[in-house]
């Protein structure tokens, strides 16, 4: 079968050491098997790993960063603005990826390529400018230390382009903070797994894209009809207007009600003053406008402005649920203006709000419990809800000052220095947990433990379903739901689209197989696409196990075993260790991996050719 359309069938490979950029043809067989986005990324990272004999320093020259939109990115269908950043993560030392919304991926595709890969290290701080067909590496040492938002403005000015999209790192990325993110379009982040640190290690301050080519679509009219159906479905959904207004901020109320909202570093799973940081508060006092990713009618992002008090004038794109929970309730902050200010600070510095909120919370608890002494904190007292101290600590992390230098190296380094912190920090494989408590739901715990990038909900998010109908779930149901999610959710990252229309408003996932059919001209069923996605999951597992990971790493944070939430509907609940191991064995069995979690040898040959 040949690929009829939907792809430019070109990749761009940039070597920063040599200063070269060459376009390479992508064979049909490659495209067919890996689809795009995270699929392309995983395969290219795997090839690079083999080339380096399975030894890669995540912050070394040899680590390959892949930026990949998908075949559906930028075409007329709901929320098609996604692109993925893939590399070996400095936070976990394993496979890592993170996706970004906005319009960056659309322009990247319009330059006429399907995937961009970057290796090497530039001699001085540089910017990669891909202007339609041409790619140039432009040294811009003066950008050193500039915040993400400022750098974006300067770069646009300097390159004389207002329409280009700029994905940039901030001071945190330059300082190789292990959870530094890549920021584009003034507040869209590829936040997790520390891709920003890798760009920093390569002296790559920003990737600028400006493209104007037609996106290849096999059947434009067919796609139009299918997409109109999908848009109409969304528009008529009873919660559509609520999504436009509150966006992801509505989840705060939901999470609090269900008892899965992290508060005080996951000591509790409800927050007494949740009403002060929820969507209704945002709408009443802070929101000044909507913000949407490319071609998205849901516009789940908000623009907020603080109108009075000490943070007056703070403008931020966001916050969304994760940022608000991790920088709000998880730190005991009940002042929404302070949450906005912290979010803005993270955007400026270019660090992940989830990891930052998680680690700052852990530091506060560690200090409270006496594991950290006042001298460890450079003499600065810090406690729950202490806005000034928290904002200062965030700056110290990004600039690697004092204790910030240790926190910047992520949870593993903190645990190495203060072993007792292992009982305080919530992390899996070195990646800090995102803002859904898993003690109430063993399927969510399994999802965190088996996610290929660490404790993040992007691969499987079963908590809502388990809360609603999961009381009667058998172990079979739980593992199968997690595996189904781990097939479907990464598929969105492969296609280059957002999953929110599906997960939040229930847009039928079969639409996506049709979209793929109309864009590429290839008749593929959803089941076939899910199988392809499953292959990628096997591949990332192969990468991870080759890098030394095994069953012992598919574990959970100490708190999940030992410290139940204090109040709320899930008070007293923890995950039983033996029960979890049983669930994990069943999961491996269903995946066809061996008892130690290693994919069988048969898989290895699958990704040769």
């Amino acid at each position, binding site marked *: 079968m040949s690929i009829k359309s939907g792809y430019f069938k070109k990749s761009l490979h940039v070597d920063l050491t040599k200063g070269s950029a060459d376009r390479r043809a992508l064979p049909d067989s490659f495209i067919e098997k890996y689809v795009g986005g995270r699929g392309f990324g995983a395969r290219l990272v795997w090839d690079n790993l083999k080339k380096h004999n399975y030894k890669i320093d995540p912050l070394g020259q040899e680590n390959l960063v892949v930026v990949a939109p998908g075949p559906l990115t930028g075409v007329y269908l709901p929320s098609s603005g996604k692109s993925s950043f893939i590399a070996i993560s400095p936070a976990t030392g394993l496979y890592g990826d993170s996706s970004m919304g906005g319009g960056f991926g659309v322009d990247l595709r319009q330059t006429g390529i399907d995937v961009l890969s970057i290796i090497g290290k530039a001699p001085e701080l540089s910017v990669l400018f891909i202007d339609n067909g041409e790619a140039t590496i432009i040294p811009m040492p003066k950008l050193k230390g500039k915040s993400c*938002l400022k750098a974006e403005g300067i770069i646009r000015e300097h390159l004389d382009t207002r329409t280009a999209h700029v994905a940039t790192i901030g001071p945190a990325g330059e300082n190789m903070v292990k959870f530094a993110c890549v920021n584009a379009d003034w507040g869209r982040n590829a936040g997790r797994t520390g891709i920003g640190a890798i760009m920093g290690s390569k002296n790559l301050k920003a990737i600028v894209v400006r493209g*104007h080519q037609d996106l290849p*679509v096999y059947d434009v009219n067919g796609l139009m009809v299918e997409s109109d159906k999908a848009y109409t479905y969304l528009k008529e959904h009873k919660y559509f207007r609520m999504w*436009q207004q509150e966006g992801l901020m509505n989840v705060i109320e939901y999470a609090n009600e269900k008892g899965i909202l992290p508060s005080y570093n996951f000591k509790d799973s409800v927050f007494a003053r949740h009403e002060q940081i929820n969507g209704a508060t945002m709408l009443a006092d802070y929101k000044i406008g*909507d913000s*949407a990713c490319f071609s*998205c009618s849901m516009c789940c992002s908000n623009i907020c402005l603080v109108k009075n008090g000490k943070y007056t004038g703070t403008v931020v794109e966001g916050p969304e649920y994760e940022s608000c929970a991790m920088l709000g309730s998880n730190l005991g902050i009940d002042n929404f203006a302070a949450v906005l200010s912290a979010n803005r600070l993270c955007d400026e510095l270019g660090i992940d709000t989830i990891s930052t909120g998680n680690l700052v919370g852990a530091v506060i608890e560690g200090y409270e419990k006496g594991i950290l002494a006042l001298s460890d904190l450079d003499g600065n007292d810090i406690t729950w809800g202490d806005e000034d101290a928290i904002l200062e600590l965030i700056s110290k992390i990004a600039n690697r000052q004092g204790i910030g230098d240790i926190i910047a190296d992520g949870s593993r380094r903190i645990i190495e220095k203060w072993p007792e912190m292992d009982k305080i920090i919530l992390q899996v494989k070195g990646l800090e947990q995102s803002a859904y408590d898993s003690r109430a739901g063993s399927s969510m715990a399994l999802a965190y433990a088996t996610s290929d990038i660490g404790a993040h909900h992007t691969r499987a998010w079963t908590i809502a379903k388990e809360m609603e109908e999961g009381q009667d779930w058998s172990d079979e149901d739980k593992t199968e739901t997690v595996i189904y999610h781990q097939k479907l959710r990464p598929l969105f990252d492969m296609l280059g689209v957002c999953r929110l229309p599906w997960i939040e408003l229930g847009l039928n996932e079969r639409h996506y197989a049709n979209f793929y059919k109309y864009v590429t001209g290839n008749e593929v069923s959803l089941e076939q696409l899910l199988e392809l996605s499953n292959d990628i999951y096997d591949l990332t597992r192969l990468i991870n196990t080759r890098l030394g990971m095994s069953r012992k790493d598919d574990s959970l944070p100490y708190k999940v075993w030992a410290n139940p939430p204090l109040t709320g509907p899930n008070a007293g609940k923890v995950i039983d260790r033996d029960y979890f191991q049983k669930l994990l064995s069943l999961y491996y069995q269903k995946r066809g991996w061996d008892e130690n979690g290693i994919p069988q040898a048969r898989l290895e040959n699958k990704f040769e050719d």
Partner: protein
Amino acid sequence: MPKKLTVIPEQCSGCRICELVCAIKHFGVNNPKKAAIRVVNTYPHPVMRMPIVCSQCKVPLCAKVCPTDALRWVEGIVHLDKEDCISCYKCVEACPFGAIYAHEDCDLPIKCDMCGGDPECVKQCPLGALRLIPEDALGEPKRVNNILSYTQMKEIEFYEKGEKKTIHYAEIGEEEL
């Protein structure tokens, strides 16, 4: 009465669906860079998302600079005559809003033709930021927005006989328009 395509930037989220549908309708391709309407974003000061599209001016400056008279205002729409146009792009530069566009692949300037009176972008805008309204109703959304901003204002200061006074307004609530 001719209708005007008007933009309410306060309601725009910057999703660019208008760009896509415009390009698909006129060129049959998925390429937002071939649209006659583009969303310009500014951030953070000020935060604004503004779709820029032809205003179909009655005294069109684009037509004034056109050396071949290829642009003509007829019944509310400034038409671009494909036969007469020589693609000098003088109109692109002359438009005070920058609402005429150029693209490498296209022989002619890209200009809004209102889809013959039923613009696709207006139909597809998910937030009602683009509207088609009769000329005599122009400015109405602005007036309504202005009133809304007053209803949210809880107090107003004023001076009477040199004395500073304050009036308090009751909040009207969050009824949607």
